[in-house]
């Protein structure tokens, strides 16, 4: 996280890709996100946990410049999403919860539409579309209308769509919610491989703790707009459950924080 003083050995991998300082969002008098301070390093998989309505999605929307923060500073891939959403959206993918598609088009048409909105020339996008459909294992279903897709397939198509713009960072909002066990596993493997093989930073919000535990390097726990804990899972376990405990689950840690809040 810290740079050394010398010229040569600035550790690029550890540069912050998201930085939030005192980020606050109020709707009227209701405080949805309260003075959030957060740093996400390049290349990590960060799990953003919290119960429903804790302000996770609002935080994501502020990072993307889709919602204006009431106060505080954010920087995402070096740009301020409030002032300069254009540059952020160019290099940051967002998979909303229950992503929607144009159901009367097939997968390729959907992806091509998004590619055009990203001003990717058709010649280049054709290759990228095939590649990303292959990554999410949907090449065989490509001719079907998206309206006929199952929930798991839609979610994977959502990932393919995000990959079209070759993002540095992807926000995933509840990526596995409502999927069957097989769909969940495929999704988690996919997310894991994106991080490992393409070195994409992943920021996923979820309340499905065992899944987060499987793939995330670090987690943050948000309860009622406050970020109550942040760090690697082992560290949080030591802090909350005692040093000696060898077998722990994220759920135990989470419940402890939840009860305290």
């Amino acid at each position, binding site marked *: 996280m810290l740079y050394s003083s010398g010229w040569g050995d600035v550790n690029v991998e550890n540069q912050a890709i998201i930085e939030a300082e005192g980020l606050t969002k109020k709707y009227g008098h209701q405080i949805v996100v309260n003075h959030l301070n957060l740093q996400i390093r390049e290349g990590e998989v960060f799990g953003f946990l919290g119960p429903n309505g804790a302000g996770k*999605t*609002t935080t994501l*929307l502020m990072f*993307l410049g*889709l*919602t204006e923060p009431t106060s505080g500073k954010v920087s995402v891939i070096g740009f301020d999403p409030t002032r300069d959403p*254009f*540059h952020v*959206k*160019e290099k*940051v*993918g*967002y998979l*909303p919860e*229950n*992503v*929607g*598609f*144009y*159901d009367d088009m097939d997968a390729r048409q959907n992806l091509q539409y*998004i590619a055009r*909105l*990203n*001003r990717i020339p058709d010649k280049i996008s054709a290759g990228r579309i095939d590649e990303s459909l292959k990554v999410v294992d949907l090449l065989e279903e490509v001719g079907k209308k998206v309206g006929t897709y199952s929930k798991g397939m839609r979610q994977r198509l959502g990932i393919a*769509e995000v990959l079209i*713009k070759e993002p540095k960072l992807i926000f995933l909002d509840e990526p596995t919610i409502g999927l069957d066990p097989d769909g969940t596993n495929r999704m988690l493997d996919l997310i894991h491989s994106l991080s490992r093989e393409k070195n994409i930073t992943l920021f996923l919000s979820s309340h499905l703790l065992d899944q987060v535990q499987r793939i995330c390097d670090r987690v943050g726990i948000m309860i009622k707009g406050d970020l109550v804990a942040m760090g690697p899972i082992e560290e949080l376990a030591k802090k909350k459950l005692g040093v000696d405990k060898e077998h722990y689950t994220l759920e135990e840690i989470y419940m402890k924080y939840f009860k305290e809040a």
Partner: protein
Amino acid sequence: MEDHFSSIRFLLISALIVMVGVIIASMVGMGIQEESKGMAKPTLIFLWLFTSTGKLFSFVQFIGFFGPLIGIFLGFDSINRERVSRTLSKLLSQPIYRDSVINAKFLSGVAMIAIVLVAIVLIISGLGIRLIGVVPGGEEVWRLVIYLIASILYVSFWLGISILFSVMFRSTATSALASLAIWIFFSFFVSLGAGALANAIAPVSQSASGIDVDAAIKNAQIQRTISLFSPMTLYSDATTTILDPMRKTTQALILMGPLERLSLSRFQNPLPLLQSLFIVIPHLISIVAITILCFGVCYLVFMRQEIRTV
């Protein structure tokens, strides 16, 4: 950006309108053919195709009345359909400016409206040339062009209204009903209400000595002022005057002395194009203004809306 062409709904409505347009044109055209048999051809007969009422109503009246429906059908679910299918937040997370979404929705709608209206006018003109055997002159063509521009603006105004509702209401059914309600209000009730209100404010008493002239004028003025609030009145006043050179004013009631009447009846010549245009320029400007105003409100509401309410 848009897939208007492929939508079945749109094909239906344009088919309907084209069909009605053709029927009206052939009816009116044949009427003109019979009437003008053995007569010297009057000037500007070609425009009769659009303004003469035939058996039911003229083409101009028809567009004035049902044209708004094209606009409403094109726009009522433009934003909230994206919302319901959850594609709006995805769309907005792409590197495009937020206003380009609403601009594209509006402009593609306007383009569709222009295509449909120009096509109908061309169909009617073509049929008319065959039926009455008169080729339009330069002035008639210009009058038609002005008419077309006014019609496109007028239908775009209704497109703006329906897009506004689609931004404001989450459900497509609500926005469709709201747009239709506004349409019905302005098409039927404003003209009815204008009469009633004028009678209430300035009643015209029918006494033995005849009608009280001052009261009658006041009544007519109030009625007119109120009905001018309706975009439909604005539009139909403007277009009938543009297409019918014999009309010299948009007023319904003109007060004149016997000499004025005499002089008017002597000069029964059509107005030149520029003069017709001069009469209706306030109407045209009002139509432009309400269209821009409507889209402006739409734009503002959409830009300020919290994405979270999706």
